[in-house]
């Protein structure tokens, strides 16, 4: 068990900078999720921790040991890949045993360790099968068992659930969380799925264009977004963002204005508000007015999308709520639930 420290790491391929001067301390036993859209540098960051990519600049530490020059095999990490990375010519048993075999763990211990790892992921009845005879979820479990069979210092997981169907993903997510809690191993988890990030992480590092946009516990990332990128990326559906002006404690949108306690005066500002903080009401009673564009039932709630001038807002409502398309509606919300961002810098103001 150990912490992982990244000190000013940069990864560059010719002109393209995948990761830019990134520094991060991942505490011992922490579950850290690197979250971001495709191409934001999250997988590259993880691959540099694993030793599969060499940083162009900067240092990687596992515990107190600088590992920049260490081969992947000498870093004592275990990794679960997006496509599982199973060895198709070996049985499940041999797949799980492989790390023990190449690391010269005494042979007498192999059988017991493999069985223990397989039991943890409920695979003990499938040990004789070849990977091609398994379902996606079972393959993922083999990859997990192979990672935990030898108690590594750090777990690295690169979008391990992205190839599973939605239902299985929820089950596996819970199992992963439980496993990490049980094993208490420092874990770095890469995903573009914010639900995975929110549910699994002790802390989330939201990445954009090779830098960390915001780092903090999931609730902080959700309730207190540091910039427009995080506000627009986190949440399903994401935060509603409306462009306008900020003048004399007033946010002025082409279609409405709302009094907001903020001293700054900005010609270009963005007001953000979560779908669940908006309430639909009669047209004349609302802070703003619009017409219904779409109405969807998601099961546990409804999502109503309305057109407000140039913008489209999504409002979460109770599951019983019904409304017709093109109906005129009003929307109420509290100023205290709003977030303000500078359009120029993208930062919260």
């Amino acid at each position: 068990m150990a912490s992982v420290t990244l000190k000013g790491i940069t990864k560059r391929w010719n002109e393209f900078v995948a990761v830019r001067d990134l520094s991060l301390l991942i505490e011992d036993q922490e579950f850290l999720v690197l979250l971001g859209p495709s191409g934001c540098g999250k997988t590259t960051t993880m691959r540099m921790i694993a030793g599969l990519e060499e940083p162009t600049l900067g240092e990687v530490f596992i515990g107190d040991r600088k590992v920049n020059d260490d081969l992947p095999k000498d870093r004592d990490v275990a990794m679960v890949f997006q496509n599982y990375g199973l060895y198709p010519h070996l049985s499940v048993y041999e797949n799980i045993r492989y790390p023990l075999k190449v690391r010269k763990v005494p042979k007498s211990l192999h059988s017991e360790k493999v069985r223990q790892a397989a039991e943890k992921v409920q695979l003990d009845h499938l040990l004789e099968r070849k990977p091609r005879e398994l379902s996606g979820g079972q393959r993922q479990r083999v990859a997990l068992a192979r990672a935990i069979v030898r108690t590594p210092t750090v777990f690295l997981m690169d979008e391990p659930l992205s190839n599973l169907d939605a239902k299985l993903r929820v089950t596996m997510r819970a199992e992963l969380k439980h496993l990490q809690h049980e094993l208490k191993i420092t874990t770095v988890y890469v995903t573009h799925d914010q639900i995975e990030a929110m549910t699994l992480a002790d802390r989330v590092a939201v990445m954009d264009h090779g830098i960390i946009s915001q780092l903090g516990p999931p609730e902080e990332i959700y309730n207190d977004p540091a910039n427009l990128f995080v506000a627009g990326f986190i949440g399903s559906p994401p935060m509603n963002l409306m462009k306008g002006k900020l003048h004399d404690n007033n946010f002025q949108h082409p279609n409405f204005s709302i009094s907001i306690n903020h001293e700054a005066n900005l010609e270009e500002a963005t007001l953000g508000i979560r779908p669940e903080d908006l309430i639909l009401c009669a047209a004349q009673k609302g802070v703003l007015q619009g017409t219904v564009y779409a109405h969807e039932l998601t099961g546990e709630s409804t999502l109503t999308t309305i057109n407000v001038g140039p913008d489209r807002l999504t409002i979460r409502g109770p599951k019983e709520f019904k409304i017709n398309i093109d109906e005129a509606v009003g929307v109420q919300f509290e100023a205290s639930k709003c977030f303000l961002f500078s359009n120029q810098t993208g930062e919260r103001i």
Partner: protein
Amino acid sequence: MGNSIRKQVADLFQFALILCAAVVILVPIYWIASGAFKQQVDVFQLKLLFTPTLANFNEIFRSPYNLHEKLLNSTLVAGTTVIVAIPMATMAAYSFSRFRLRFERTMFLMILSTQFVPAVVIVLPYFLLFRDLGLLDTRLALVLVNLSLILPFAIWMIKGFIDGIPLDTEEAALVDGSSRLQVIWNIVLPMALPGILTAAIFCFILAWNEFLFAVIITNSKAVTMPVGLSLFHAEEGVLWHLISAAGILIMLPMFGLAMIIQKHFVQGMTLGAVR
């Protein structure tokens, strides 16, 4: 109803085309196969019923033909070529597939470009080279020539199979604790084995059938089977019954190998990644 008739006509047309292709390919083989078991007087008669004889096979192994010596030469030359070529080609193919090398594309193109040169252009330089080295009419010379002809082909073919192995699998092995050599030995080789076997068999066939260089740089001791066939061009004319018998001996291993290739080729295509 109309559709069903159209489908039957299409099937019939397909069958007729396949039959035509089969006839074109198989008639010469049938002619050789039947000739091998005919007596000399019957060879030019197209009769389907004749009394088969094994005398031709007896005769080709006796003096002055001594075909067993040529058979041994062919086996040793083709076998050694494959045994040397395949490990070399596998390592080169792995490097080309996995490492980003300086001038990689140029190097690969240069290797392949050796295949674009007609063999007849380089046969004379080879002859002079081996004459100066004192290697004329030796099996070693044939192995060297075959290696130069076969290696580029083997590298290209094996690279294709290694390219098909997902990088994730290798990287998983690296993180699991393997060195690069262990990755190659434990993961890449078993996964590419059907491809490597296919390449080995193709190379064996190429070396086994090689005629042009063998006819120029051998004359008695290192003569191979394809060259040995020219022995049957005697004063009394072309001894087709003996050529046919020798031809059968040349073809038999090829048929066996072709059947193995077929099996492994399908395996190679279907092994692939586990996703």
